């Protein structure tokens, strides 16, 4: 055993540990108290799959997504290093494979052989990319970085907070967070049945990187003279890439475990040597590929002809400030939940099916859980794909003064439910909504009226109204309304700035004197 120079496996483990730590660290920094100056979206931006898919839907390589080019270029030279060295889900899978392994050593050799099942991920990739090309972005459902970010934001971290960790001031809640995180648990548990099941069989990013590493300059190479066919290299092989035979280049994650296992020194990582074995090209069936592309293409009109907010507005589909109109929004949102992590009030929630199938797990505002903080624009600044535009505060809050030129961003409009409102229905003073309304002048105003109660007693009371041209739909009135279950004032999406058809009043912006 050599001492001193660390082997490639050790170096890989150091990198893996570092990147897993970095992922968790940046996710922890992604809130108002810690955000300043950190590249919290780094992993989402390094991800070539989201960059490619979002570029297919809208023909732009948005801002930080250009970082993905770095991974693409490195992959062309080195192969699929990302999966074992950088990808936090890959690294978690590797760790859990190690922990959950249920096979005997003798079976590891069989289990780590290449299996035709590994082709599935290429078909998934083909399907998802064809959909993206036709304008439907569903890559975020399966993209490992988006999936892991979403699972941590809506599931793991709230659960840790519940266990006593202090990530947040108050316990955050996310609609269906447990179900989202259950998918992650299932992925980790699948390693019990096959080492790195997700990475080998399902991961569309792995497939994309596999395609990109069809002719890497450097790779694992086997000296055919030295090799005694002992198969020891298969014992800990992470990719299932047959280093004992013709290497499946597109399956190899460069975990470097085989190098350490080979007793003959027959394996090396680098350029070919005089007696290096040939590699094996990508093993996919063209017919299956065409089939999956066709199925995906057939699914697009199905999706587009089913209900979506783009055609018919839905009252509960209130999008974060700066969101693009629904169609381009869905063409860019990868459901990564970065916006939900950074939101200080917990108002941003993963949508269920309110906005149609396409909008599953995209961000909406649920004002009973939070409200849009008046001066907060963080969601747009962490959105990796620009589904939510990065706004400045003046851009968001606008200028209501008579000579003001900038219109405020409207998320929707608040409406009173007179049957539930205390001053309107129950002769009870309240106007909390007016107190908390953040616009100046306030969008909620009141009339002093004199009423008669049941006993005929006269009483003076203030009854609130909404001025729709001033209301920005931030939802703090709904959030703070003392009617606890269903508020007596509720925001719906009508009047939202981003939509041309979700409208109500013809003359929508009369200036009210300040």
């Amino acid at each position, binding site marked *: 055993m050599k001492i001193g120079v660390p082997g490639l496996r050790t170096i890989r483990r150091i990198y893996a540990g570092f990147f897993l730590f970095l992922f968790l660290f940046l996710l922890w920094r992604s*809130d*108002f*108290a810690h955000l300043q100056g950190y590249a919290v979206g780094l992993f989402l931006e390094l991800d070539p799959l989201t960059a490619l898919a979002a570029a297919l839907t809208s023909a732009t390589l948005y801002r930080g997504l250009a970082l993905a080019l770095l991974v693409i270029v490195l992959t062309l030279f080195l192969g699929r290093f990302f999966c074992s060295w950088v990808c936090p889900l890959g690294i978690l899978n590797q760790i859990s494979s190690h922990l959950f392994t249920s096979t005997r050593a003798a079976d590891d050799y069989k289990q780590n052989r290449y299996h035709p099942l590994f082709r599935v991920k290429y078909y998934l990739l083909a399907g998802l990319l064809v959909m993206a090309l036709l304008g439907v972005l569903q890559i975020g459902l399966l993209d490992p970085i988006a999936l892991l970010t979403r699972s941590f934001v809506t599931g793991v971290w709230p659960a840790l907070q519940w266990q006593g960790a*202090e990530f947040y*001031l*108050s*316990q955050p809640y996310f609609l269906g967070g447990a179900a989202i995180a259950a998918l992650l648990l299932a992925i980790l548990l699948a390693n019990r049945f096959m080492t790195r099941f997700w990475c080998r069989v399902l991961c569309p990013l792995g497939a994309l990187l596999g395609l990109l590493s069809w002719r890497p300059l450097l790779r694992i190479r086997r000296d055919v003279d030295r090799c005694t066919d002992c198969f020891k290299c298969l014992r800990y092989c992470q990719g299932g890439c047959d280093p004992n035979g013709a290497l499946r280049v597109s399956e190899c994650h460069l975990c470097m475990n085989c190098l350490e296992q080979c007793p003959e020194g027959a394996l090396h990582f680098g350029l070919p040597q005089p007696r290096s074995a040939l590699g094996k090209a990508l093993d996919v069936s063209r017919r299956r590929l065409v089939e999956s592309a066709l199925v995906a293409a057939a699914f697009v009109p199905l999706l587009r002809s089913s209900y979506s907010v783009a055609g018919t507005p839905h009252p509960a589909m209130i999008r974060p400030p700066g969101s693009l109109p629904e169609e381009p929004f869905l063409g860019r949102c990868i459901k990564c939940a970065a916006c939900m992590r950074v939101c*200080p*009030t917990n108002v941003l929630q993963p949508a269920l099916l309110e906005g149609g199938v396409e909008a599953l797990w995209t961000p909406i505002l649920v004002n009973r859980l939070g409200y849009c*903080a*008046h*001066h*907060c624009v963080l969601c747009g600044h962490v959105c990796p794909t620009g589904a939510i535009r990065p706004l400045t505060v003046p851009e968001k809050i606008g200028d209501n*003064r008579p000579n003001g030129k900038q219109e405020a961003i409207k998320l929707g409009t608040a409406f009173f439910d007179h049957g539930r409102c*205390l001053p309107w229905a129950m002769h*009870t*003073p*309240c*106007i*909390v909504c*007016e*107190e*908390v*309304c*953040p*616009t*100046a*002048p*306030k969008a909620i105003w*009141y009339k002093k009226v004199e009423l008669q109660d049941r006993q005929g007693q006269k009483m003076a009371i*203030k009854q609130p109204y909404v001025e729709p041209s001033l209301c920005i739909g931030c939802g*703090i009135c709904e959030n*703070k*309304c*003392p009617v*606890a279950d269903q508020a007596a004032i509720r925001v719906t999406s009508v009047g939202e700035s981003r939509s041309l058809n979700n409208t109500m009043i013809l003359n929508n912006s009369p200036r009210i004197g*300040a």
Partner: protein
Amino acid sequence: MDKHREEDATASAAGAESSEEETGSPKTRRSGSRINRVEPVWSRRRFLHEVGVSSGLAAGVALLGYVGYSRQAVREKSPEIHTLRDFRVTADPHHPLLAVVRGQQVEAMVREAVQVLGGMQRFIQRGDTVLLKPNVGWDRQPEQAANTNPQVVAAVARLCREAGAKAVWVTDCSINDPRRSFTRSGIEAAAQEAGAEVRFPGSNDFLMTDMKGSVLKVWPVLRYFQQANKVINLPVVKQHSLSGCTLAMKNWYGVLGGQRNRLHQNIHPSIVDLAAAVRPTLTVVDATRILLRNGPSGGSLDDVKVENTILAGLDEVALDSWSLALLGLGASQVPYLAMAEQHGLGKVDWRSLNWMERQVG
């Protein structure tokens, strides 16, 4: 138990070895099968043991049933109910009860106002833990006058440190997100710079507290009020649509968690209950900038008026009554003041008290 298990093991091992003898012809024995292994004949001792163990388990089940039996579906835990202590120091007729200081320098004005009342050493002793309660309700900047001026918070914190306070904490239950409110109000930075710590209202930071009021009974109150031994109220002068104004007495809204929005339904008695429940060591009112309209959240600089005034006092009713004039209100328009006086919390007619007005700089 263990002994028997061992016996079983040896017996079955012996059985496996000598199974040919026991089961007769090798033809009838299924090699490698465990199904046909024979249980050893029980001795009397074994029988008694087995009966004993089963009876013991049965008795355990019966006992659990006995202990757990209840005619209620859930067991009620009565939560621990706290009460707030009186944070006031003993009265001293030699010092005024109300000081009004006008000037330009916030720090100097605060120092002068506290000095008029007898100096901070009258209120804070060495080793005290002091809790400052400014109004940090809103995610607004200092100029918008929706929150207490951060310079006032810093000046009071510094005075407490100079008087020997072991720790100075700043807290409030903000209406907007507390982290944003403390940051953008400038109060977090000012407090830290003055040697005070911000205590955020996390969801676990409340204790059920008996407010002993006519409207307010048991409410969740920030636990820091149990941990500190001195409390200083630092309100800002603002207009409020329902109560008319939000001043020193209404500033105690910020100790409550829970569904405190309901207090609006009976706001004047609620304010009196709050002021009766929390009796501070000292109150310093920030009237450097006041919010005249669109309160209590404000938002427009057009609604802010610069008054460059600091009040300090030991009578919250008198302080509120004095400040009303800044908002163009009279005591008759604000019912809670008379109610508070009736409750013995102070004097509406502040002129009848020992008071003093000063100009600094």
